[in-house]
């Protein structure tokens, strides 16, 4: 009885240890969602931009479009990303800081970057509110509300 139980236990441990391969799909949590709101009543606001992107490296994400909400990637090889929002009247800046930690995942998946403690370092909008400070791996949640 004891011997049978012992062998069953070994079989169980070996089986469970073989089911240990991680999923390789979109490992980095580097996506943030931004909602634009009206300062006076917190209702959804539409931002019309002529250009939108990052300052360093100089990248252009959008041109001549409007949005009430958008999802942006953070540069996980840096500890901050500066976005610019160019409108017909002015150019707004949003500088976000965060902790980015590298981690090896597996020989199949390679590495991933775990981002946390996101905060607003600087901005030129009327007000910015952080709803949650952990970026996500998919374009789903709202992390920031920008009031203007």
């Amino acid at each position: 009885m004891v011997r049978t139980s012992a062998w069953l236990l070994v079989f169980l441990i070996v089986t469970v240890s073989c089911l240990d391969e991680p999923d390789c799909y979109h490992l980095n949590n580097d996506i943030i969602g931004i909602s634009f709101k009206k300062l006076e009543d917190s209702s959804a606001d539409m931002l019309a931009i002529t250009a939108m992107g990052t300052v360093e490296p100089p990248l252009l994400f959008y041109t001549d479009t409007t949005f009430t909400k958008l999802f942006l990637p953070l540069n996980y090889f840096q500890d901050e990303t500066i976005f610019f929002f160019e409108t017909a009247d002015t150019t707004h800046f949003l500088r976000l800081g965060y902790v980015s930690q590298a981690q090896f995942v597996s020989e199949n998946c390679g590495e991933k970057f775990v981002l946390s403690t996101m905060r607003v370092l600087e901005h030129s909008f009327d007000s910015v509110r952080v709803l949650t400070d952990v970026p996500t791996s998919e374009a789903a949640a709202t992390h920031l509300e920008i009031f203007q």
Partner: protein
Amino acid sequence: MHDLVAMRLLIFFLLILGADGAFSQNEPDSAKVDTVRNKYLPTGVRIGTDIISLVRTRTQNNFHGWEVNGEIDFSRYSLAIDYGTWGKDLNSDSAAYANTGDYWRAGIDIDFLNNDPDRNVFFLGVRYGRSVFTESMNVMRFDPTWGLLSDNFYHSNVNAWWLELTTGLRVKIWKIFWVGYTGRFKFALTTDASEEMLPHDIPGFGRTNKETTWGFNYYLMVRIPLRKAPAPPPEK
């Protein structure tokens, strides 16, 4: 959540210990035969090494390690101490990872084959594990948004602590030679990871991608008897 699971497992184990003690009290003759002094003097020492680590070192290019194990047998209870080292070199298309470090574990086992004439052991136990290691990772990847990225990460003297629930067998094969295995359920891992890098693999613990993990060691051992074991309680 993590701590809650660890606490429940510890309580579960302590309940087993308590039940074991309660059953022992129901054996009226055993208290007369086994004095406290007899029960808690060591009857033998087992010293062994983990065969799996040695085989992996010989057969796998990306692993090197060894582990020695010592157990002091106090009749039904054993004090177990493990010491080992391991290192891994892992490569993916975009990253090269390496770690190396030492670890030790200490804990107590309870034997559930107490009256076996060969002193074979089937045990449940707990361990506290500790590791100090160094790890590094070189990354070079192309990101569709940010372009070509490369960086080197290095983290030395990383500390890790964890707990284990263990079970296993020790079987006498010939004279002083024994074999045995230990299955380990490892949980409650704590590390002092750096701001730049999170550990991937901790010597003695394993991969960190889940909050709990399993381990398995197969030992070749020698047992040095120190004194004659107390006589088992007479059968009715």
